[in-house]
């Protein structure tokens, strides 16, 4: 499996965010995308996930079935958490839609909640979660969706030091298992990426 971008260009509302972007990620590699606000980091992730169409060029996931989006999981600024559902129900829902169902799914949900330190909150409605806890719940989705391509948009925002450590362990475990991660991040040096590109400022 490899993720290939060739001559990729992105326009939003008539404004060119970036063009001529090219990279090639093999299984087991992580790419860190940096750049100032508005440089197109989120748009790049949405392009890879198939949620936006490129203005030029192409991005493709070779060696995976179906569209690139189906092999990918996106954790973005919008956390896809329903406040009225409990923490467990939120995760069970995405597990059923994106990953395994039945007994396997339930075990995966429990494991993901405990990995992110949310087990004690499982039965509480998601509306009581703090911003950092919501981020942890969104990251827990990665463990139940079991996709090989992770698209992470500022995954560390709102996380405490312990959460940052869990996150970097998760990413490290994912790429050592042959996955690919694309991480948009300002700083976050603790996320070990094998490759880095910088958007904006002449990129």
């Amino acid at each position, binding site marked *: 499996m490899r993720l290939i971008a060739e001559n990729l260009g992105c326009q939003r509302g008539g404004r060119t965010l970036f063009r001529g972007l090219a990279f090639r990620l093999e299984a087991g590699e992580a790419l860190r995308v940096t750049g100032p606000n508005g440089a197109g980091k989120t748009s790049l992730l949405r392009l890879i996930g198939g*949620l936006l169409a490129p203005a030029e060029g192409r991005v493709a996931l070779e060696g995976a079935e179906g569209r690139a989006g189906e092999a990918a999981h996106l954790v973005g600024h919008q*956390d896809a958490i329903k406040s009225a559902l409990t923490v467990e129900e939120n995760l069970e829902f995405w597990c059923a839609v*994106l990953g395994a169902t039945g007994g396997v799914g339930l075990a995966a949900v429990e494991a993901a909640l405990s990995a992110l330190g949310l087990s004690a909150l499982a039965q509480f409605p998601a509306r009581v979660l703090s911003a950092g806890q919501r981020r942890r719940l969104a990251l827990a989705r990665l463990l139940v969706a079991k996709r090989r391509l992770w698209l992470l948009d500022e995954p560390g925002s709102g996380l405490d030091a312990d959460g940052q450590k869990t996150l970097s362990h998760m990413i490290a475990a994912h790429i050592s298992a042959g996955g690919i991660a694309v991480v948009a991040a300002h700083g976050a040096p603790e996320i070990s990426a094998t490759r880095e590109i910088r958007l904006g400022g002449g990129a």
Partner: protein
Amino acid sequence: MSEALKAILVRDLKLALRAGGGAGIGVMFFLAVVVITPFAIGPDMKLLARVGAAELWIGALLASLLGLDRIFAADQEDGSLDLLLMASLPLTLVAAAKGAAHWCATGLPLVVAAPLLGLLLGLEPTALGAAALTLLVGTPALTFLGLVGASLSVMLPRAGMLVAVLVLPLAIPVLIFGVAATEAASRGELFSAPFRLLLALSLFFLVLGPVAAAAALRHARD
């Protein structure tokens, strides 16, 4: 795949029935429309009984327009829609599951409430049954028609009124045949021509609604 669709249906039902979900608002609005009618028309029981079936249908139609705009907009705002688009599920079936959940939470209570509200309008027992039956057959058409309006306005904030204006003209045939079928059924002709046309409209929109909604949702992604 069916497990995933069931999960979508169950989640949407839970969200609608929990606090702030808005499942009860439609029935309350229906009640309000029916209750104010005698104040406007006057306490003439014969006249009320004659316009009662039509009144129930108008109330149910207006009530079913409420909350349509939230079907996809709520998922769009919190990012759930992005993930549903990326899931390996046919978007048409996702839209159908969401439509079915919306009907169960908002359409079905109208059907159940209709005979009770019909009592307030002095309808005969047969007319009460006829209204409930035709609403049972006709409200899915309204919901799945609304699915198209909801998907077209998914990127717009506060699109509630816009969706109602988009959907209302297209719902007129459902209203015409719904009222005609109710009147025929009150006279004892259950499977009258209007009733069969109403059934056909429902089946038509049950198929067309999700297909059109999926196309509109894909288009809305820029």
